[in-house]
């Protein structure tokens, strides 16, 4: 995973709450067996509407998304994160994220930062006053700046550290292999096994 330090790019005011992962990427796009190339699928149904915010030329090439509460609810599909990433987004901010989405984002180097609702609304107003304005995200300092507006955001220490270092989770866990093996030796015999099939 690439190290995440700072990102500067066009900011998008995404003024919707409860953006579920079926909207981020409809199920019809989940049939692919690859991990990249989902940029065309992002918000596919909403993008048919010419008024949809990402169809506004002012937000072309955007990399920072500011959304309403409960972003990423519903299905566990990591494709939602892949689609945001493939489209070019590096960071998503919202007052609340669904737990699975936030976890998936952290695994793929997409920053999911929490900003309280009144502050998100201030950012929306600021962007709309100057569509195309650039946002600068500083993960080290946990701040985001949009024009002259600078705000802090929340992200848990562990995810921040992993993003800053670009660590791969499986590699980190396999350092504990001896502990895993010891745990397995203690497991009770009543616990289920799938093999041999009965």
């Amino acid at each position: 995973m690439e190290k995440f330090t700072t990102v500067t790019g066009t900011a998008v005011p995404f003024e919707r709450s409860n953006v579920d992962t079926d909207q981020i990427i409809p199920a019809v796009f989940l049939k692919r067996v690859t991990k990249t190339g989902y940029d065309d699928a992002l918000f596919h149904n909403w993008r048919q509407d010419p008024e949809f915010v990402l169809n506004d030329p002012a937000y072309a090439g955007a990399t920072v998304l500011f959304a309403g509460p409960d972003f990423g609810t519903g299905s566990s599909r990591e494709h939602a994160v892949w689609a945001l990433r493939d489209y070019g987004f590096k960071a998503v901010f919202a007052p609340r994220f669904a737990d699975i989405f936030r976890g998936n984002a952290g695994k793929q180097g997409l920053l999911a930062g929490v900003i309280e609702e009144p502050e998100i609304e201030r950012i929306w107003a600021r962007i709309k006053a100057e569509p195309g304005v650039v946002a600068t995200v500083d993960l080290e300092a946990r701040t985001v700046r949009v024009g002259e507006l600078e705000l802090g955001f929340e992200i848990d220490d562990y995810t921040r550290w992993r993003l800053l270092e670009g660590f791969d989770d499986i590699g980190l866990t396999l350092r504990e292999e001896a502990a895993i093996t010891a745990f397995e030796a203690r497991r009770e015999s009543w616990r289920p096994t799938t093999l041999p099939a009965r």
Partner: protein
Amino acid sequence: MSGKTLAEKIWDAHVVTKGVDGQPDLIYIDLHLVHEVTSPQAFDGLRQAGRPVRRPDLTIATEDHNTPTLDIDRPIKDPTSRVQIETLRANAAEFGVRLHSLGDVEQGIVHVMGPQLGLTMPGITVVCGDSHTSTHGAFGAIAFGIGTSEVEHVLATQTLPLKPFKTMAINVEGTLRPGVTAKDIILAVIAKIGTGGGQGYVLEYRGSAIRALSMEGRMTICNMSIEAGARAGLVAPDQTTFDYVQGRPHAPQGEDWDAAVEYWRTLPTDDDAVFDAEVHIDADELEPFVTWGTNPGQGVSLSESVPNPSDFDDPNERAAAERALEYMDLAPGTKLKEIPVDAVFMGSCTNSRIEDLRAFASIIKGQKKADGVRVMVVPGSARVRLEAEAEGLDKIIEAFGAEWRFAGCSMCLGMNPDQLAPGERCASTSNRNFEGRQGKGGRTHLVSPLVAAATAIRGTLSSPWDLEHTNAEGR
């Protein structure tokens, strides 16, 4: 020191290494369920890194999301669906993972397969690359959905790094009236706490109304925990749980069974344990429930009317309600019972088990479906289909004018050909009423199997209470 909750006891029994300084705990996973949609990129990751599946004997796969529910003996028509299924078959063979393919008696929705095989049991940790993994919490297990990177992580290490959850008690006291079911309880819970109310929590469903539910009913409730924002929901194991598990193919046997039950009896939340949050629902007051909007929290009793967005104080909720009514093509103040439907879908991991099919059949028996309404009944697994046929439920369903299909996720999310056409309105026993979920432009009202049955008879959203002949049963 105060006691522990059910969830905390299970968590503590699965800590491989304890996290320090804000690091997550490393948690051991007892059972990993796999399906074709969220696994191909995970197996690919293993292949690229040269890693094996650490514990094939704790892993099991099935085909459910893409599988057709008609003509299952013919090649899958959609080439991308076919490639995804073939990829799972190749990966299972290469990595030594047990797979129940289309045509196999155990094939079906992954959350129906685990319990029917007796693999799902109290006191274990269960994961799957599917958010409705919360279903398995009905047995008193910690069960939750994971993303594809985590699927790869579990395949490689049989563990996950996880931060402890907060705990929330959902206390449901009282007695459900006939015609009111587990589905109505959970829809009412989601409407009460909202789609984000459970974020960061494990929900424990408690109280006399939960104790009175069958395992199928408890699975329906835990299934939709994710719709309240909670990754997991659970119910303390009791005699109902033990009776359901005992004798199934992978249930413990002999001394193992005795040791397991002895341990399982220690799992219920201690009397002096403290939850981080508590919610109360009065089961006596509940009525058949239905959603009117495009998220599962937008629901009311079926006897009510479509709400007016101006009734919502919160500006975000108001905007969401306005958008939802526009998408659903509904006017504020319309009586829900006057809303006609084009389709009824009876199925999904929420409501496709044998008891759900029995409840549905009990209402439609001897009746004819309303003209112009398409009714599709999709059992949760091939085994459920066989059980239903042994009981003659298929005959009741076909005589009613409904379609009796093969097992799979089907129209819950329309990855296979079972989809709504744009503008079609459906009463669905599934779990998500998101825009386009059941087909682009389709409109979904979430309901119980009993409401689905009554709606199929009358052609408008209805409950058994609206039927002359009602012999409503079902919990």
